[in-house]
């Protein structure tokens, strides 16, 4: 493993200044479950790791039924699913945080790090997309916000500019009659990277028979996680039916541009997009309908 | 007398004969007697007075150490089989 320096930053400005100074070869260390492996396997060239875990702003975990969730970028998965109110409000986020790695990984890895790692197959990103999350980014010129679906730009690449870091994620409070669902396909039951992942959120009418709006997101079928915008829009105003869900699934399949690799073949992935989109939508609808 | 079961790939030496009964109290004697009856077969089984690598001897169904000095009972059945490669069964000398 290459040699590098380590700094435990105390404040966001301190971390930002270091990032700005060192450029590409400085990386934020949060959970480290991706970064440490990448450096160890010489897949990333790093001179400086900036540990942000002692910065209060990146450790915020605050949920309010009116204003929604503020999720610090370094908050570990296990802390997220330990909060019942978050489990109730954002079930897709819980679906994802309970399947990232194993329990030991979940003790270190967080959704913010999952997002910054920008893997096309990240389980944490589709839920953020379907939940309409916003990234809060700090940089040399202050803070800015960015919709989460615009954050990843290529495998391992993000919209973060020189000197910028992700501070937190803001997730709006869920609408009434809404819920969400995330699932992935893996050959084993744990410890695998998604062959395909699909997330969906739906808001139903009061009768819970018609879809008011929906959002669908996909993982591992393109260079970045995808917001399936057309497939989502197709469902707005539709009565719940297999036909409507099939149409959305087909629209989702249409935007998938998967590759073949050791985790799955392109044709398998395209097929699975249809299967998982249906299951995610049905799962989210079921959750709304099951809620009293 | 012991019986030698000729491996299929060596039956061309014996005119297709599968089981040959011949005298011998050790593997060496049996092979020598086999050679005098079917010339050329010893060369396929042995080199420099040792069993060739890749060939194993079973006597009455039991794997032996592959030594030509191995004793052979009067009613023994002897098999020459491919030695089991892949790390399992060829004992070292």
């Amino acid at each position, binding site marked *: 493993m290459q040699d590098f320096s380590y700094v435990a930053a105390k404040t966001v400005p301190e971390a930002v200044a270091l990032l700005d100074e060192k450029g590409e070869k400085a990386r934020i260390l949060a959970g480290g479950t991706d970064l440490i492996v990448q450096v160890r396997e010489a897949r990333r060239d790093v001179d400086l790791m900036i540990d942000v875990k002692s910065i209060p702003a990146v450790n915020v975990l605050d949920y309010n039924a009116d204003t929604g969730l503020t999720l610090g970028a370094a908050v570990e998965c*296990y802390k997220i699913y330990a909060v019942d109110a978050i489990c109730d409000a954002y079930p897709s986020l819980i679906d994802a945080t309970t399947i990232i790695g194993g329990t*030991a990984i979940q003790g270190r890895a967080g959704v913010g790090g999952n997002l910054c790692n920008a893997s096309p197959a990240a389980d944490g990103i589709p839920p953020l997309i379907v939940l309409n999350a916003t990234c809060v980014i700090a940089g040399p010129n202050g803070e800015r916000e960015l919709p989460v679906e615009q954050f990843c730009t290529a495998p391992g690449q993000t919209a973060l500019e020189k000197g910028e870091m992700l501070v937190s994620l803001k997730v709006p409070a869920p609408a009434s009659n809404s819920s969400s669902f995330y699932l992935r396909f893996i050959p084993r039951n744990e410890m695998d990277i998604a062959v395909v992942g699909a997330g969906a959120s739906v808001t139903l009418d009061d009768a819970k028979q018609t879809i008011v709006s929906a959002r669908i997101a996909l993982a591992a079928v393109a260079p970045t996680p995808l917001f399936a915008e057309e497939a989502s829009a197709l469902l707005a105003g539709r009565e719940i039916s297999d036909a409507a869900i099939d149409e959305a699934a087909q629209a989702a399949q249409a935007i998938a541009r998967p590759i073949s690799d050791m985790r799955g073949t392109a044709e398998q992935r395209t097929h699975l997009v249809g299967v998982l989109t249906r299951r995610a939508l049905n799962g989210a609808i079921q959750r709304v309908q099951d809620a009293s | 007398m012991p019986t030698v079961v000729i491996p299929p790939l060596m039956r061309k030496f014996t005119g297709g004969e599968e089981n040959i009964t011949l005298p011998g109290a050790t593997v060496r004697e049996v092979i020598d007697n086999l050679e005098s009856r079917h010339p050329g077969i010893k060369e396929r089984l042995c080199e420099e007075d040792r069993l060739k690598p890749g060939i194993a001897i079973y006597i009455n169904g039991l794997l032996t150490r592959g030594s030509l000095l191995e004793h052979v009972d009067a009613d023994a059945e002897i098999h020459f089989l491919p030695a089991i490669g892949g790390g399992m069964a060829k004992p070292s000398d």
Partner: protein
Amino acid sequence: MARKSHVQTTINGETVEFLCESRQSLLEVLRDELHLTGAKEGCNNGNCGACSVILDGRLVNSCLVLGVETEGKSVETIEGLAEPDKLHPIQDAFLENAALQCGICTPGFIMSAKALLDSNPNPTEHEIRYWLAGNLCRCTGYDKIVKAVLDVAKASA
């Protein structure tokens, strides 16, 4: 030569100081600097769980923690589990159930099981299997490991 940092941490209740390079993982520090070789390296990328330790009360893969990150923290390893004259109940259960064969994964499984039972003293079989999925065992087929953890849970119920 790579520079070393001074780190002070608590390991199994004792204050420990060590020097380490930034690139040394907690696993390397435990094994090579402190000679606590109970945590094992099976994969060095968080996929086998053989290096599992408990960091500030939470199960982690020590191969995915930098030694320098443990400044001021508390680490529990397999070496700290038993009392001087008594094994921890999980250790006893592993022995009674023959829940180990080669034993290389055993420290990781025991630490992982401890973290589970600390937070959920009465898990179901499925909860045990879910929690332990990050620990690979190639010898036992997991049957007796799961039974050992179930036994501990039953005893505490």
